[in-house]
């Protein structure tokens, strides 16, 4: 096998950190102990030792069920619902003589309903299974020792210890130890998109000792033992030791290739399988998201309980009367109703023991009136929600063309909650802003560079009421070509002119730091084109900025960085090589990063960049020359909404470096748990006495359409909280930029940066500080509250920082704080940690008791997303963790507007209407049975044939209600967006409040009375046909049932607002199906069809009275609702009624004109200054809500 190793290491040039120069000789303390017991015999998967360990195979199953446990497990899931248990008990009892109807007729609907739900589960699981099959049967090349070659093997047959070869663009089949690669310096690149969503490539590096094994022949001799940690879910850690050639080598995550990541830019690699199947890190990470239930569902449960109580009550009344009647059958020793043979009776009808008979009859009643409980409710709702989420996924208006990402409803059970959101808690970076950074300004040696204004600055200027000068915003068209990540314009520096600036040496150093202090990888795309793969967009912006100014970073390998820079003396571009000695990486705790390099002049330099606070406290005395001015500039930048970073350097003494390096390397190769702490300490040791060079300012660009979207959401009456880690100034400015804080809004700032607190902090008494802080916060909150109460007509914006927040969350204060927060239109929490975000979310949820929605894009938002009622993940650039933890994923913040105002509103309306209607139709049906009972001396004889009843919920009324739940629209999507106030219907829950639910139930009761009494009086008694026949039990049943089917389906037609052919088909089809059913069922032999035999064909259809009765009853039963709706729409219209009427006559209405004026004005002014009357209305509404929720909180 001829193998040419890549000589030109164009891609294999980076080993910025963790280059293993030496292997640790230290005994790894934990290896072999508990938690670190895994042993892998490399290349010997068949050895006795390996087999004895019985590690799991590489077969992976992500399904919830298996073929064996599907039936019992899914049945168990089904019968965890109270209603289903009830139906199961009924089905069991239906075999006893207690049952008012035959057992099959009650079992069939139960089987259909349970079967449908199980089928849904099964299909979902089958899809997962197909994915598993696909993954398990992928092919990988596994080394075969006998033939010294690789042969194709399925993934699932892979064993621990196997040697595998993975080629370019293939996925790793298991967690592997990298042995060697096609590159001579045994590196390889992997893409970890499936693990953390990051698209940039990561570099992995094998141990040098294994690099020799780079051909199939040489592998034959390869023997080694790996001892390492047990399977765990930590993606970024790995502790293990390689025993090879009588030597021990410590292993780090650098050598581990994780399953489901992809090999990129590398021809092939060899690796040893360490973890297989469910032991792999990615599988260990797979957890089920917490299950969330919607408020409507919870209320629905309570309604079910109400119905259960009604059921029991009705049965009780029935059995009471039955007991009395039965008792009367034996009066004074004589049997009265002799035709019932009371003398020769069973216990169920025994007049001598009427109490027992009544009790048993109560059970019969519970079964008979069981139609009050809608059996198919749960499954119908589930079907509807799944279809609704398909619509959400398919919505083209929420599809991001650039990223090719549609919206994705990850759970389908929260759809209607989207229509009830009261508060949105939003992350800032990556959510409101697009996390694409542009280098716009810098301050070098105390001088400001970079002109032009950012969007935030413009908003800021407008806020101050300044007239905008001609200084237009930075315009990309101005420059020759726009460069992504770079928006810096200054003729003093650009095009090599920096040389003539007074402090050109500082400028040179400044940009050198930017060009070398990073972990980016250059990719040469063409002669003049270099792209950078960087860990964060800030970093890319710096490298690009350095390149554009003239410090072009063009190549790097493990030990050096190559720059092409302008030599100020000669004026030509020269290549300079910096020897890269160490990289002290960035971490959120350190808030800084530095590199140690040796420049071509053999100087040892430490180049550092980091947060201003961190860098300033590490400056040397001489290094503080520009401190004051730089601080000022940084202040100014952050006011303008820019992200700042301070840049500094230090020249290192050779001896100092040597001693430090020794310790550092020792720490680095140690494998103990406190390694990180040790390394941090050592990094601190060297990162001191820095000399300040200047500061950078990077603009965090707002996402497209954010201000408009926020404006819409605010007008919909949704409160918006921004939870960000940024500084107060930045947060406020972003707030203005995206119209969260508006002109004319009063700011309430709660902070601890007060002179008296700061003074105490200097003293250092922690308890005193805490107490003083608490008191101060208390005072501020009370003051703000009184201010808010006094000026009830103004809008307020509350700004609080993370530290103050910890005090405001104090048990005694939290209620008044939340009270205050709820009265403010906008709340911004700056400097808050991920944990605080989650805590705030939980508090808002519990204190207001309303629906909260959290939206975020990063791993730091995961807690918040899981805590909120609804978590929305932005599938942006920051990785997939947020999306994986979310309930809905969208590509852009602005899609939230459509998700809430359109889909949320629709789904809320659909589900609440659907549930109300469900109860209506079942009450209508159930109570006709009860009225009939009253005329059978409550004997438990159902009014209808058994099979009519069992088909009621499943066939004659189910499809229209599903059509309602899936397709109904009160107003079109365009109008939903145009009239954001419509959303308040969901927030205030006016479509599913108790009056409305009870109203529907009452309507059901009314319908049942109308149907029963009109039908019986019209049809029974005298002849119902010209030929003198009278209507008997079966004719009455059919007539009443016909009326019920017509009535409930026509009620549906009355209550939906949107008729497509689907609705027509379902509604009229259901009615038609009833007649078809009757004909078909009536034509099977009478021993099976009993009372239904030829009842339509022979008895009812020829009777004009039957048809006239149907018409009369249906219209009479519809009349109450129709008149109520007519009067309500005309005289007390709800928001959607109003809009529907407007839609009809757009030209003649004032309301519409207001709207038009509004949209024009908001376009003209961009800031959301609303016409006063409208604003007032919004304001009043939100104030009302605020007060209402405050009332709940106290």
């Amino acid at each position, binding site marked *: 096998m001829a193998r040419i190793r890549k000589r030109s290491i164009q891609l294999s040039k980076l080993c910025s950190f963790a280059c293993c120069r030496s292997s640790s000789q230290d005994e790894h303390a934990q290896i072999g102990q508990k938690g670190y017991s895994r042993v892998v015999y490399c290349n010997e998967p068949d050895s006795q030792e390996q087999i004895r360990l019985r590690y799991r195979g590489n077969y992976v199953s992500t399904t919830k069920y298996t073929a064996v446990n599907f039936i019992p497990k899914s049945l168990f899931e089904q019968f965890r619902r109270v209603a289903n248990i009830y139906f199961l008990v009924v089905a069991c009892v239906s075999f006893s003589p207690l049952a008012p109807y035959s057992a099959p007729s009650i079992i069939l609907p139960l089987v259909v309903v349970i079967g449908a739900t199980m089928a849904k589960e099964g299909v979902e699981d089958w899809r997962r299974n197909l994915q598993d099959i696909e993954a398990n049967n992928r092919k990988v090349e596994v080394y075969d020792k006998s033939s010294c070659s690789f042969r194709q093997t399925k993934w699932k047959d892979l064993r621990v210890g196997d040697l595998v070869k993975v080629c370019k663009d293939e996925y790793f089949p298991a967690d592997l130890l990298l042995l060697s690669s096609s590159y001579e310096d045994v590196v390889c690149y992997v893409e970890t998109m499936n693990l953390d969503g990051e698209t940039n490539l990561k570099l992995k590096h094998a141990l040098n000792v294994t690099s020799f094994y780079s051909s199939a022949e040489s592998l034959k001799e390869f023997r080694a033992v790996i001892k390492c940690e047990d399977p765990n879910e930590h993606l970024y850690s790995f502790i293990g030791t390689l025993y090879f050639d009588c030597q021990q080598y410590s292993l780090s995550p650098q050598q581990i290739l994780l399953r489901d990541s992809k090999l990129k830019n590398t021809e092939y690699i060899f690796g040893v399988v360490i973890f297989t199947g469910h032991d792999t890190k990615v599988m260990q990470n797979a957890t089920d998201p917490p299950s969330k239930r919607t408020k409507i569902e919870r209320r629905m449960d309570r309604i079910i309980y109400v119905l259960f109580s009604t059921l029991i009550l009705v049965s009780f009344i029935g059995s009471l009367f039955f007991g009395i009647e039965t008792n009367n059958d034996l009066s004074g020793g*004589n*049997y009265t*109703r*002799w*035709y*019932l*043979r009371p*003398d*020769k*009776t069973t216990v169920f*009808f025994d007049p001598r023991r009427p109490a027992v008979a009544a009790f048993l009859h109560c059970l019969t009643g519970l079964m008979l009136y069981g139609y009050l409980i809608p059996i198919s409710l749960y499954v119908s709702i589930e079907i509807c929600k799944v279809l609704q989420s398909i619509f959400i996924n398919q*919505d*083209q208006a929420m599809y991001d063309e650039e990223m090719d990402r549609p919206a994705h409803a990850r759970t389908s059970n929260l759809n209607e909650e989207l229509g009830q959101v009261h508060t949105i808690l939003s992350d800032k970076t990556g959510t409101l802003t697009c996390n694409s950074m542009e280098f716009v300004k810098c301050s070098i040696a105390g001088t400001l560079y970079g002109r032009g204004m950012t969007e935030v600055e413009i908003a800021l200027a407008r806020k101050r009421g300044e007239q905008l000068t001609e200084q237009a915003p930075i315009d990309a068209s101005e420059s020759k070509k726009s460069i992504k990540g770079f928006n810096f314009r200054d003729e003093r520096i650009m095009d090599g002119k920096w040389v003539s600036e007074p402090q050109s040496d500082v400028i040179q150093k400044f940009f050198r730091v930017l060009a070398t202090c990073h972990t980016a990888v250059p990719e040469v795309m063409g002669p003049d084109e270099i792209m950078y793969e960087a860990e964060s967009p800030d970093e890319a912006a710096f490298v690009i900025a350095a390149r554009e100014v003239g410090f072009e970073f063009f190549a790097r390998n493990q030990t050096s960085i190559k720059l092409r820079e302008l030599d100020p003396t000669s004026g030509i571009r020269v290549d300079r090589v910096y020897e890269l000695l160490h990289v002290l990486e960035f971490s959120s705790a350190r808030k800084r990063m530095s590199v140690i390099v040796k420049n071509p002049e053999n100087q040892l330099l430490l180049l550092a960049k980091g947060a201003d606070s961190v860098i300033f406290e590490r400056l040397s005395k001489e290094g503080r020359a520009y401190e004051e001015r730089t601080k000022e500039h940084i202040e100014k930048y952050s006011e303008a909404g820019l992200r700042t970073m301070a840049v500094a350097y230090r020249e290192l003494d050779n001896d100092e470096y040597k001693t430090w390096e020794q310790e550092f390397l020792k720490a680095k190769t140690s494998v103990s748990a406190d390694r990180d702490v040790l390394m941090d300490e050592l990094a601190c040791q060297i990162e001191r006495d820095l000399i300040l060079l200047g500061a950078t300012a990077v603009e965090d660009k707002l996402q497209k359409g954010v201000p408009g979207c926020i404006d819409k959401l605010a007008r919909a009456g949704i409160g918006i909280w921004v939870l960000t880690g940024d500084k107060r100034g930045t947060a406020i400015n972003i707030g203005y930029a995206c119209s969260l804080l508006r002109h004319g809004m009063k700011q309430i700032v709660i902070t601890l940066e007060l002179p008296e607190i700061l003074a105490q902090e200097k003293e250092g008494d922690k308890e005193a500080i805490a107490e003083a802080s608490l008191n101060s916060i208390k005072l501020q909150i009370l003051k703000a509250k009184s201010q808010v109460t006094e000026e009830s007509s103004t809008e307020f914006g509350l700004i609080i920082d993370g530290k103050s927040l910890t005090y405001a969350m104090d048990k005694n204060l939290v209620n008044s704080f939340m009270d205050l927060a709820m009265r403010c239109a906008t709340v911004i929490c700056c400097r808050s940690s991920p944990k605080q975000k989650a805590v705030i979310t939980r508090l808002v949820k519990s204190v207001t008791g309303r629906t909260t929605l959290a939206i975020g894009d990063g791993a730091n938002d995961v807690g918040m997303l899981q805590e909120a009622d609804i978590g929305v993940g932005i599938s942006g650039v920051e990785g997939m963790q947020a999306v994986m933890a979310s309930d809905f994923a969208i590509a852009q913040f602005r899609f939230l507007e459509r998700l809430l105002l359109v889909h949320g509103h629709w789904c809320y309306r659909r589900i609440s209407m659907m549930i109300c209607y469900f109860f209506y139709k079942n009450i209508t049906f159930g109570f006709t049975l009860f009225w009939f009972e009253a*005329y*059978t*001396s409550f*004997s438990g*004889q159902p009014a209808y044939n058994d099979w009519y009843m069992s088909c009621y919920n499943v066939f004659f009324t189910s499809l229209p209600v599903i059509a309602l739940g899936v397709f109904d629209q009160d107003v079109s*999507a365009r109008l939903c967006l145009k009239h954001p106030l419509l959303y308040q219907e969901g927030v205030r829950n006016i479509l599913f409040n108790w009056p409305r639910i009870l109203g529907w139930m009452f309507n059901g009761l009314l319908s049942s009375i109308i149907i029963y009494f009109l039908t*019986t*009086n*019209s049809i*029974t*008694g*005298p*002849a*119902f*046909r*010209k030929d*003198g*026949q*009278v209507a*008997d*039990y*079966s*004719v*009455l049943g059919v007539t009443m049932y016909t009326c019920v089917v017509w009535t409930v389906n026509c009620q549906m037609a009355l209550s939906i*607002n949107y*008729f*497509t052919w689907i609705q027509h088909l379902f509604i009229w089809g259901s009615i038609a199906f009833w007649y078809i059913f009757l004909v078909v069922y009536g034509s099977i032999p*009478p*021993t099976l069809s009993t009372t239904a*035999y*030829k009842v339509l064909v*022979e*008895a009812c259809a020829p009777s*004009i009275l039957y048809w*006239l*009765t149907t018409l*009369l009853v249906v219209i009479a039963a519809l*009349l109450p609702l*129709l*008149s109520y709706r*007519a*009067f309500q*729409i*005309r*005289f007390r219209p709800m928001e959607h009624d109003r809009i*529907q009427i407007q839609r*009809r006559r757009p030209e003649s209405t004032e309301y519409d004109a207001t709207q038009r004026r509004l949209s024009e004005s908001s376009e003209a002014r961009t800031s959301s200054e609303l016409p006063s009357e409208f604003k007032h209305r919004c304001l009043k509404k939100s104030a009302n809500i605020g007060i209402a929720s405050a009332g709940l909180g106290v």
Partner: protein
Amino acid sequence: MTDTDRGTQRDRDSAFSLFTQQSLPACKPVLTPEWVIMTFLFIGFIFIPVGLVTLRASHSVVEIVERYDIGCVPEPFRIDKVSYIQDDSIPKNCSLSFKVPKYMKAPIYIYYQLENYYQNHRRYVKSRSDKQLLHGQNEHGISSCQPVEVNNDRPIIPCGLIAWSLFNDTFTFIRNRAELKVNRKNIAWKSDREHKFGKNVYPFNFQNGTLIGGGKLNPTIPLSDQEDLIVWMRTSALPSFRKLYGRIEKDLDVDDVVVVHLMNNYNTYSFGGKKKLVLSTTSWLGGKNDFLGLAYVFIGSSSVTIAVVFTLLHLLSPRH
């Protein structure tokens, strides 16, 4: 999803896209005041005439109802009617007469009407065997007939409470000294005669027990021809009901005096039920029933009233 998929989906005109984007062409009815008024007026204008027509049909029917359960008990027995009816030694014949109030055109339907008789009681309704009625003795499955399924260890045909309690009052009609012929054929449903009651099934062991319920059956006539039984076994919907007894196929003139000789055999006295004899003609709609017409007129006029009230309120109250 591939690019081409997207491309086709972007095609706004395709029906599938209209469906997924939830923008199918739809009719969106709105209850505007005009529609409300029109709808209610329309209902009124349909319902009132229909109601009037049905009322007219109902009034064209001539109906004679004569209660006889008390009148047919001789004066001395009226204190204890139950023992009178249970005493076989007392003859039960009785006669009543009435004057025809209006010209009655043939066919005139004769019904007997029972009140407070729970033929729809669950125990009663279930006590029958459709299989036995159709196939006869060799069929099992008569357990549903309890408590009247066997007698002397032999199955009863027809079994069950319904058959056992067969109504057995009989009526003969005399006009001007001449007997009016009563046609008692074809009073049951055709499907019942042909498909529910067997042609080869004969009554057997019927009313042979210690307790005799209602009427007896001629054991030489197959069940499919026992129309009285068939009619009786179509259980009634409500506790007060009429059942067809026969037809008089001669017209009755005004002031004709009809004398009815009847056998008052059936016991309704123990549970306080009423017995009535009904003679009625039919219209195209059926028997005499004012309820439907009145209900139509009522609904129609309420609709019109609502329309008027709505219009007035609509005009008086200004739009916001």
